């Protein structure tokens, strides 16, 4: 016992020093730029979404309570707080190759994605409307977004996947219109898509999980400075899908390609282990979004049910401008 006391004492001394220093630092914590609050108990999408029949994803775990942005050196630190502690990946082997969950989801979380779409100019004709692939929703007119931050457990894979999905879509368009498509044309298209995607979408890799909160850093270079409370934000929480499947129909060009999903757990009728349950039968426009921050006076359930299959109009999400709620701390919407 005595022989471990020396290293223990040394370690405790170091930790104590670091904690005391950080306590001092906490007194001068970075300035809060804004906080968006969200009601608890609304992690059910449009009201019918049910958690998968899994033992590692339970109601409340994807229930967003707030999103806070802080000004930090070199960028913005976002902090999302959930209703329950964030489930940490363990060393469970998850495939026959022996890959363990903590090696594949190395950022310290694995059950959710958080999308933050930012409408920087709030001009009606500006920005993109479609959200990231698989969200089955778009920004409402007037909320078109210029930047998106997607916190996901496998950011590099997501980034590559986004480029691949967009390249594939644009290649299909090109092949439908161009008299001939050479490999060079595809390469050029891919380079163009990659540049555009990288300037438009950011997948945080500096991530810290503490209890029920996840903090992720977004560099100023991506947003052109710190996040502003005068911008509009669409914030959506979804379930994360860690794996990627090769779309054989797209790869071998057999029939129509399947629905593209960027690391998102889908919704399906009934109850399942591999997807959210409570989906409507033959309903391609029901969004698999679990929790969304919506403007004051509107109900999430109403917003997420407002789509039209006949008109092929998906759900439209309105951006929330924090400055509009300035002075109303932790505004409940």
């Amino acid at each position, binding site marked *: 016992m005595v022989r471990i006391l020396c290293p223990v004492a040394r*370690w405790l001394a170091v930790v104590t020093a670091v904690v005391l220093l950080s306590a001092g630092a906490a007194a001068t914590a970075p300035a809060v730029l804004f906080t968006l609050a969200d009601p608890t108990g609304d992690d059910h999408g449009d009201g019918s979404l049910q958690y998968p029949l899994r033992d590692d994803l339970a109601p409340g775990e994807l229930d967003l309570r707030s999103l806070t942005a802080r000004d930090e050196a070199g960028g913005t630190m976002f902090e999302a707080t959930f209703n329950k502690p964030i489930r940490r990946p363990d060393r469970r082997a998850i495939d026959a*190759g*022996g890959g363990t969950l903590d090696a594949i989801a190395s950022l310290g979380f694995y059950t959710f994605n958080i999308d933050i779409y930012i409408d920087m100019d709030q001009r009606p004709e500006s920005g993109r409307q479609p959200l990231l692939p698989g969200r089955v929703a778009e920004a409402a007119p007037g909320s078109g977004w210029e930047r998106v931050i997607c916190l996901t457990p496998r950011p590099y894979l997501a980034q590559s996947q986004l480029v691949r999905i967009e390249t594939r879509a644009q290649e299909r368009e090109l092949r439908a219109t161009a008299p001939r498509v050479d490999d060079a044309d595809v390469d050029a298209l891919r380079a163009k898509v990659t540049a555009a995607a990288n300037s438009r979408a950011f997948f945080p890799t*500096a991530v810290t999980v503490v209890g029920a909160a996840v903090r992720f850093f977004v560099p100023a270079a991506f947003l052109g400075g710190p996040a502003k409370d005068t911008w509009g934000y669409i914030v959506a929480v979804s379930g994360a899908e860690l794996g990627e499947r090769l779309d054989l129909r797209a790869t071998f060009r057999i029939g129509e390609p399947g629905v593209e999903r960027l690391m998102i757990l889908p919704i399906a*009728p009934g109850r399942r282990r591999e997807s959210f349950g409570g989906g409507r039968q033959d309903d391609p426009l029901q969004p698999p979004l679990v929790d969304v921050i919506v403007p004051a006076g509107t109900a999430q359930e109403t917003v997420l049910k407002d789509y039209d299959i006949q008109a092929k109009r998906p759900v439209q999400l309105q951006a929330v401008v924090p400055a509009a709620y300035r002075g109303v701390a932790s505004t409940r919407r």
Partner: protein
Amino acid sequence: MSRRLIVLALAATLVAAAAAPANAQLTIGGTTYTKFLWGTDRNQGSLYNFTTVPEEGYGDNGQGSEVELLLSARLGRKVEVRGRLHSRFNQNFWTNFGGWGGRNPSGSADRLGPCIAGECGEFDPRSNQYVKLRGVAVTLTPGYRWLDSATLGANDFGQFDPFVIGRIRYIDRDNASGMLFQGSSAARKVTWDAVRISLPKLWAGPNFMTGRFHAADAAYGGQIRVAPNAKFDVGWIGQYVNDIEIDPADGNLDDGRDMTMRFRNAVVGVKASARPTSTVNLTGQWYYSDSQSFDEFAPPGFGWTSGFSPVLAGEHDDHTWKANASVSDLGATGFTLNAEVFSIGAEYVSMMAARRESDVLLTEGHDSTWAFPGPANAAFGVFPGNPTRIGYGGWDGNAQQVATINVDNEFSDFDEPMAETAIGWKGITLAPIYSRGALELKGEYSYIDYNTNWQAFGDDTLPVNTTTFPVHEADTGVGHNFRSAYAPFQDKTTHIFVAGANYSLNVGRGVDFFGKFKVVDEEDLRLNEARFLPYVVGDCTGGPCRGRVNEYSPGNSTSVIYSNPSLINVGNTTGYQWKPFDDISDDDRDLDYKLMQVGVGSQLTNDLHGTFVYERYKVTLQDGNSAFQAYNLHEMASGDHEKNRVILKGRYVLQGMEFGVQYEYNFGTFDPDFGSGFVPQIADDTIAAEHHVAAGSRGFTGRFGGWNSLESRDFDQYRLKAFIKVQF
């Protein structure tokens, strides 16, 4: 799989979809794995690194592939059917050239032993590339208010509790089948699950079997969880295992046949958690188990050297409980404290508790690189023909603790987590975490005492060489033998101390530096009362031992374990073959264990991640002397160990394909110190050949004829695993 085959499969999908009702849907997906193993142990029994299953192979060399076709048919909104067609790596080496030819085991009258290494080719399913139907289940979601779903068929049953009914994996995660009903009410504030699991006859009973009559054996389980609000929930769980046999006393078949019990096991539990604030999380769990095996069909006990069973013999009951508290981001300093107090009963038995892929305790526990008693990870290594199976490097990382002795690390590779039993453990763990920006500091201090600390298996009226507690490999060596919870004599305490740090440097795509320092201080006095010494005091003084047995109770003596040595002559020296067991310190264990790990990982490109790890273990171990002989069964590990591990990992992702590789260089030394009081012998040519030691080297022959070398050993081993995974 060729492109043509894939196109055909897709065409079949489209045809099937076209023929089905309008709202029906048939989905075909799949996964292919290709694995490359290479290692200097030069084993080729199968394409898995490890197994203890008799007549199964293990190996560290070879290339092979397996494919899994996932079939899922949705017949409208309420009915879904799924299944898989899956081949196995097993002994399907690429060198089998498609699995043809080979030795016919029935024709050779088994003269050549079991089929391993693919040598039986097309005559053995394990080497003829068979594809097996697996995971067939029908899921009903009838839309009743009281029933959410009913799943009939294969399942991993992971929705219960690792202390009671855990995630079940053998080869697959859904080998087990049963009927699972799940329901809810009050807007899912109340949920319930009820299950009947057909009892796996491969392992779910005494002696790893369920007897001759298995078809009606089952485990019944249920749980209810009530979560009135987000701050509090409480749940109750129970299971009952019913392993029955046809009553041999019932000779009248005309009125049907009576049944009688082989093994039964009941477990009940309650657990609650509270989250009074967003940063405080409190949980508590308590379980009670009762188990009984019946002598007519199950062994009444085990020899202390040969106790292999997933459950205890006879009737036992015990409690298990633990409580956790977690305070996150204390005072917004980034400081989080996790604490756990726990006690897992020595006689706690849950037949269906998780066997692996769960971690029921907060502590890191022991390190998986020291998985078996001998310095090279060999079990029973003092006897010829028992080399290490997993290799000197063992498994990677620290072990996961499970609440059963029915631990299963079968058919795993070195890069997978190893599970260890925590039966009998009680103690406290404090695990602080400090996070600030890119820096994370983590620590652990655990104090572990044992409910299995006892003398003569806890009952000194009984002989010590038969017991109702299966000892498996017995707990000796540097680490904790993964399924050994019981020893005839134990008086053990363990302190585990871990300090670790991670730092992410924001350069390029980020560079992650990590490291940890771990200390384990463990003492086990084992036999700690003189009345248990095998022979009377002075029995061996001044010449040959006289064999005057010391009885700790009438008719019972430890001399059945620790017999006296003979006097032998080696050269001009006369002395004992091993030291007589005449002092209670002869079997004492004192472990001074240090691990230092440093590593760096980086996302080199969007698709490629690389990691480098270096680990250095420095261990000084006293694990009994030559009187103890590692229970006469295993290579002794007393002495100084230095082990080094250099690990390189890479993972590359390309359009749904994942390539992974892990390369390890494991090297080190072992300088034995088996004490004094005996005359070292010299290995002759026979011993040298059988035990892989140099002729003329020093050692001693133990009670059961095993050879323990007294020479220093140098280890120098390489191994590699690479895989390609494609999901479609």
